């Protein structure tokens, strides 16, 4: 089978992935226009962030995977140091998550969403797989250290996402089922301690999830209003720009974390199925890139990043539909906000790099 690399391929761009991103971005802007009270300014601002994200994606795609593997630990160390710095001097509303460098204000935890899986993948890829216990423990420490620092900010949602992105590497790396089962049992046993070490607002979120009506004007209000929006959308939805729950401001955070509620209200179950199909195509492409990767680093990284993307989608949709606690996770490529978009497109850049830097040694 002779493969003639296309122009895009030579630019290290994966066409299906790019297509998926563009479709999702367009869809996101359409929903955003409605969710942001038809403010074209917001849409333009978001479009510029998308452009920035695409630039990052294409830039990172040019970097060969080996170099990524080499630089990842550096990024990991810098990120960890910044997290410590955040704990010392960080700024933010309520919780300290942000670092303000005057011109740029960003969350170091965002770096770790990429640095952790890349570093752990680089570490694991060098080892014999399935990993030995020593390797597993070392990898676990690499995952849990930054996660612990992020929890301390406190930002439970991001900490969980960073941790899972690293843990997926271990999973795909082949840690044994019995080890996972033991960890799970240990986790359940430790749950009571976790409950007591949680912040009051985090406990409240869990309690509210169990019974939203308990607190109809506080945290529960978000869940109730989002459920009303989703439910009243029905099968066909109320139509674009016609969502009463969103336009009358009943849905909180409707341009960011709860934009899925706006989408459900206006486009109904049919719209949701279409959205899920689009996501599935992107996820499938990610997994295929992982399967086709020639080196273990590429495989682990690609599979882990894809899985993380899925977790974002799942957690956000679960949260909006009232199946999961309210954790501040945006809907990938749809929610308003630059940081998450750039991070996701960068991870797509890494996928593209992995896919387009393969070497075709022979024709078999």
């Amino acid at each position, binding site marked *: 089978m002779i493969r003639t690399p296309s122009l895009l391929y030579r630019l290290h761009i994966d066409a299906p992935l790019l297509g998926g991103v563009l479709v999702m971005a367009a869809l996101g802007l359409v929903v955003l226009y409605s969710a942001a009270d038809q403010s074209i300014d917001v849409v333009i601002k978001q479009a510029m962030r998308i452009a920035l994200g695409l630039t990052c994606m294409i830039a990172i795609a040019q970097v060969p995977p080996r170099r990524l593997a080499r630089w990842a630990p550096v990024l990991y160390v810098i990120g960890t140091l910044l997290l410590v710095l955040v704990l010392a001097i960080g700024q933010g509303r309520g919780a300290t998550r942000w670092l303000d460098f005057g011109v740029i204000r960003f969350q170091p935890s965002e770096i770790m969403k990429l640095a952790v899986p890349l570093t752990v993948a680089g570490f694991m890829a060098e080892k014999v797989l399935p990993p030995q216990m020593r390797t597993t423990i070392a990898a676990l420490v690499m995952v849990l250290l930054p996660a612990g620092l992020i929890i301390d900010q406190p930002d439970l949602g991001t900490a969980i996402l960073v941790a899972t992105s690293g843990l997926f590497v271990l999973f795909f790396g082949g840690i044994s089922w019995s080890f996972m089962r033991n960890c799970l049992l240990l986790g359940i046993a430790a749950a009571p301690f976790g409950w007591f070490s949680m912040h009051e607002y985090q406990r409240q979120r869990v309690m509210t999830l169990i019974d939203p009506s308990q607190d109809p004007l506080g945290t529960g209000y978000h869940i109730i209003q989002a459920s009303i929006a989703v439910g009243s959308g029905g099968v066909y939805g109320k139509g674009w720009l016609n969502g009463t729950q969103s336009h009358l401001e009943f849905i909180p955070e409707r341009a960011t974390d709860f934009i899925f509620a706006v989408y*459900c209200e206006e486009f109904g179950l049919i719209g949701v199925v279409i959205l899920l199909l689009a996501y599935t195509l992107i996820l499938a492409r990610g997994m295929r890139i992982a*399967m086709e990767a020639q080196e273990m680093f590429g495989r682990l990284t690609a599979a882990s990043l894809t899985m993380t993307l899925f977790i974002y989608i*799942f957690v956000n949709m679960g949260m909006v539909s009232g199946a999961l606690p309210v954790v501040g996770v945006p809907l990938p490529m749809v929610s308003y906000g630059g940081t998450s978009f750039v991070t996701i497109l960068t991870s797509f850049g890494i996928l593209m790099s992995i896919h387009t830097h393969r070497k075709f040694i022979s024709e078999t």
Partner: protein
Amino acid sequence: MKRLPALKDASRERRLFTHRVLFAALTMGVLVSLIVARLFFLQVINHDHFTTLSHDNRLKILPLPPPRGLIYSRDGSLLAENRPSFSLTVVPENVTNMDGALHELRSMLNLADDDIEQFKKQLKFARRFESVTLKGDLTPEELATFSVNRFRFPGFNIEAGLARHYPHGEAFAHVIGYVGRISESDLANIEQSNYAATTHIGKMGVEKSREQVLHGRVGYQKVEVNAQGRILRVVERTPPVPGSDIYLTLDAGLQDEAIAALDNYRGAIVVLDPNTGAILAFVSKPAYDPNAFVNGISRSMYQSLSTSPNRPLFNRALQGQYPPGSTVKPLVALAGLQYGVRTADQATWCPGWYTLPNEPHQYRDWLRTGHGNMNLKFSIAHSCDVYYYTLAHDLGIRRLHEMLAKFGLGAITGVDIPGEAGGLLPSPDWKKRARKQPWYPGETLIAGIGQGYMLATPLQLAYATAIVATRGEAMIPHFLGEIEHPVTDETQSPDVYRRPHVDLANTKYWDAAIDGMDEVVNGATGTAHKSGIGAPVRFAGKTGTAQVYGIAQGEKAKTTGVPEHLQDHALFISFAPVDAPQIAIAVVVEHGGGGSRTAAPIARRLIDYYFKDAHAGQDAPAGTDANAAPSTAGIGNEGHAHDAATDAAHGDHGTAAAPATTPDTPAADGAAPSAPAAVPLEPDYD
């Protein structure tokens, strides 16, 4: 388990990885299915439920208050209206510098610190975009001052609303009453949904009794609101049904004339149409300004009204219970005829006093020298007490009670405003029940001249007079003339207010009593002779003088001995014209002295107004000329002496208050010994 060699095995790793990816894909599939299931649950299974919730969220029902019906007099004079009222409101979100603006407005609008504090308190609970009232009911000056400076106060607006206003102020206060803010206790008696937007409700008078007619039906507005409650648009509107307008039976001109006629006296006047029961004038003086009550009267103002010795809040015409005195004599005479105890011509000798058989005590006539031989007609005309002592004794209290009750004494008339007092018509049963004492024969005598325990309201007196005037027609006094629907202009008259006709054994009895009342005014020696001179129509009447008793400050007045307060209440009942009565009048002047001196001229003035001034050109009954002859001939005769009697009446009570004037000045209208407690000469009845 055997430890694996630490060598990389590419194909094994690839296989392992592939398994894991397949497992991951499977997991993703399951989780996505869960999400879809959850959304299916929300969007398909519970769709209707959430649709309802979503509507409830965004659609709110706002009630719209109906405009209150207007109240007119029978001649179309507006008595209660809805006037635009302007208030200064503030939308907090539009104000840039609240404290600064308030500071400037403080001097401009005479804002008190209390007002501002109150406003700031309200502000805390108000939403940013909702208007809060800073000052209600702006005066035209305040309105103008603010309007000129308006540009300096962004966020401050003038809002117009409707407020109840009574253009005649005091004049109709005791009839119309007033509206006030709905109170906790009002809520129990109203259909709350219908009052959802209403702030005021009738508290007194016609405003209260006709609340249902005046109020109307609430309207609704379905509006779309956002999460903060801001109204975005009106989805649907059901307009309110305005309250119906009411035409009262009151004649505004006659009312004003009655008020003027009472001059500075305290007292009450009731004028009604005996043929229908329609009340033409209803005055209680002093009165109060009902407008002060509409938006909540200030504590100090209410204090001064409620503690004033003149008691302006007290509705004397409706609730003032006065001894009817000699005004009951025509009724007692009718009882004598009806029960066959007297004939009209039968004479009774009046020596100036009366004693019960086997009792030394003398019951005095107001005329010490005595009236001589009195028949029924002249007993009324001269108000001879001895005639009625004798008659009452012969009748007995039970028959007396039975007859007077037919004329409505001792029971409310059923007039259509709330709070009516029923007076008191004493009987042995009543005394046993209320006082736990037996009835004494002497009490029957003084009941015969309308004193003692007996009490009647001015309204009751007018009602009884109307029954006599119409020879038995008992029309319930009322204020409601017509109800006019403001939209359809359909009018609706209330049912006829009729009680069973008062029947006597012989209709001639009526003539006898009416002849007596005619003689009071038109006879040369009648007690109100002077008031009848030159009247536009021939009218009949009966004077009365009631000892100060049972009225608010009565007891106190006696002990402090203020002369004005010791003076008797002057009463006069009347109807005109004699032949075909059109009006029946009751006048009570507190501490007015004698009925002939004070009360009768007031009634005459009303008759003048009604038959001459207001109804000029209308049919003047033939009887008019009859007055002319005695009026010229009567100069210097006894009839004139009556009005010279002035204050003498109370001297007859046996109290020692003013003995000097008593002996030779005849009081006009037979004020006589009354309550036993006040009569030292009558210590022991048996």
